[in-house]
């Protein structure tokens, strides 16, 4: 049984002009200890996916259909108490800004002990010992002192390490990290990513890494899911997605990176911008920016189909794959 199984998840946002779909029936699975990257630009729905998995969506967003099976239980059907019990305990989340998660008026130790004692029947001293061990695990120098410090006394990188330690506090099965290093400097980002990878590997924790940075995804995850305008458009092994992307958008995204073009030359840009929720085109949401657009793309949204290592939602790719055997035969 997979750790997490998402089926036809649809999330809508209530607005003046009726409910607008921010997630359009997405489905994916995550095995135990697997690391999945969700890549997309702002507005693709990747953060909303993370929030929906934790049942953290707030108004005007709501889950409109589908199921999220986490260890066999449907998160969408859980009572508030069950959700509280699941969060932090079995599923933890790391946000972009550590100051959002850390309470500025409590010391690091107080926050960690409080979290532990809320979920486990531990004495204060026992909880503090566990907190100390976890801080050591994330290579925090002099963890004893850190426990009595306030979040503002620590640097950004240190805070994010503490967030990781706190996420691991109750030995969760799954960590959802939403842009965990976007607010950090490059040198610190690399450290944090390495730490996250190491922690997930050594503790057999599943990871969903939500990011816009393909470089980060390539270093940390085994599988990658590319999202565009509330849909999954391509998913597969990270290596094959980066080395041999199928969907025109994924190709465009990778080709647009400055590393892919010799210095001084024009970058290969994708024209236009992602459609907004209120102005979603018919058919394939990418057709307004796609070089391979056909009438079929404008009419119907392509289904996700499996081809070898990757699953792609694109009429053009489907057609190429269908035609391929014929060409080979000729």
């Amino acid at each position, binding site marked *: 049984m997979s750790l997490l199984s998402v089926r036809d998840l649809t999330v809508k946002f209530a607005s003046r002009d009726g409910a607008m779909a921010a997630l359009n029936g997405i489905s994916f699975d995550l095995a135990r200890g697997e690391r999945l990257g969700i890549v997309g630009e702002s507005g693709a729905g990747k953060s909303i996916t993370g929030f929906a998995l934790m049942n953290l969506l707030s108004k005007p967003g709501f889950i409109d259909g589908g199921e999220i099976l986490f260890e066999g239980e449907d998160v969408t059907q859980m009572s508030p108490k069950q959700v509280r019990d699941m969060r932090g305990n079995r599923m933890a989340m790391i946000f972009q800004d550590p100051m959002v998660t850390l309470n500025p008026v409590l010391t690091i130790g107080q926050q960690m002990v409080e979290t532990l004692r809320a979920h486990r029947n531990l004495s204060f001293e026992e909880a503090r010992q566990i907190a100390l061990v976890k801080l050591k695990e994330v290579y925090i120098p002099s963890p004893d002192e850190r426990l009595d410090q306030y979040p503002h006394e620590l*640097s950004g990188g240190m805070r994010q390490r503490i967030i990781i330690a706190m996420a691991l506090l109750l030995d969760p099965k799954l960590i959802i990290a939403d842009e965990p290093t976007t607010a950090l400097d*490059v040198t610190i980002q690399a450290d944090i990513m390495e730490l996250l990878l190491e922690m997930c590997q050594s503790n057999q924790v599943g990871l969903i890494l939500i990011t816009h940075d393909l470089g980060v995804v390539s*270093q940390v995850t085994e599988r990658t899911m590319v999202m565009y305008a509330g849909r999954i458009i391509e998913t597969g092994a990270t290596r094959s997605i980066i080395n041999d992307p199928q969907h025109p958008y994924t190709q465009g995204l990778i080709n647009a990176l400055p590393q892919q073009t010799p210095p001084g030359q024009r970058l290969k840009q994708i024209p236009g911008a992602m459609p907004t929720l209120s102005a979603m085109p018919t058919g394939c949401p990418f057709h307004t920016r796609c070089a391979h657009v056909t009438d079929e793309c404008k009419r119907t949204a392509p289904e996700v189909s499996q081809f070898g290592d990757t699953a792609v939602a694109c009429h053009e790719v489907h057609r190429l794959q269908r035609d391929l055997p014929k060409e080979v035969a000729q």
Partner: protein
Amino acid sequence: MSWDLETGPLLRVRGLEKRFDLDEGLLESLKFSGGKITRQTRAVHAVNNITFDVNKGDAVCVVGESGCGKSTVARMVAGLISPSNGEIHYGGARIDGLRGKDLLPLRKKIQMIFQNPYASLNPRMTIGQTLAEPLRYHNPGKSKGELQDKAIAVMKSVGIDPAWSARYAHELSGGQRQRIAIARALTVDPEFIVADEPISALDVSIQAQVLNLMLEMQEAHGLTYLFITHDLSVVEHFGTKVIVLYLGSICEVADTRTLFSNPKHPYTKALLSAVPQLKDDRPNHIRLKGEIPTPINLPAGCPFASRCPLADNRCAAEKPMPLQKDDGSIVACHAVEEKRIDALDWV
């Protein structure tokens, strides 16, 4: 001071410094210590003794991590804040300290593009008004029709449909807004553009569009750029020369190709190794230990000493001076000077 404008650098920055006072009022600056009331003012040392040149047609990139003073340098060059010390010369004339009307001719030559396209356009003005205002202000003699034509030409050149004049910024996407911001800078036909992280607030596919536009504009208008960024992959693609800053001090200045093929300063090496690469599947970067000092209490020695694996007693005590190397790059590092860096295989 005079030099040949044809061959001399367009922009010369000499010994630039900027301090921001933390305790501004008289009462705030009074401190009680050791039984006596003394007057102390704390200051953030944002930029410390920076010297560099920008030649005509160059795209000089200033890189560094948050708090290294790169935006402060940009704002001083653009004349938004005045330096605490040092000189800025543009086209042979000193420009720091100019005020009011004296600045006006310079404003037509040096323009700026900002980081956040959601904040850099006035939300209460239409696109048309945003572009028309500087045109009218700087060309008081011209007729309405001429200005209109100019506005339309600028909009077309940055790929914005002139029919959008009546729209407000909030109706446009981030990439479109950044195009408008570039168009606004181009309305006055500048020679020099200071771009403060112009693409870091944008999505990857949009970043490419804006970078391409900036390259096109460089060719079309013969622009010179001072480009502030934290993204090294953009630097490699866009810049002709790189200035690496750490805590307000210069670590290394080099041609882009030299810097990327042969980085010398330990910080530059760490920075380059930390950029996530598409092709590796394992992070393989130089780990920096230690904490970044605060810019309020700067260390006496090398600012990077607290994190540098090669730091010794000299680094902690004496601040290294920027020294020119054989390949033209300038490096401020005792380890490089003493050739300790080659002896140690710490990568």
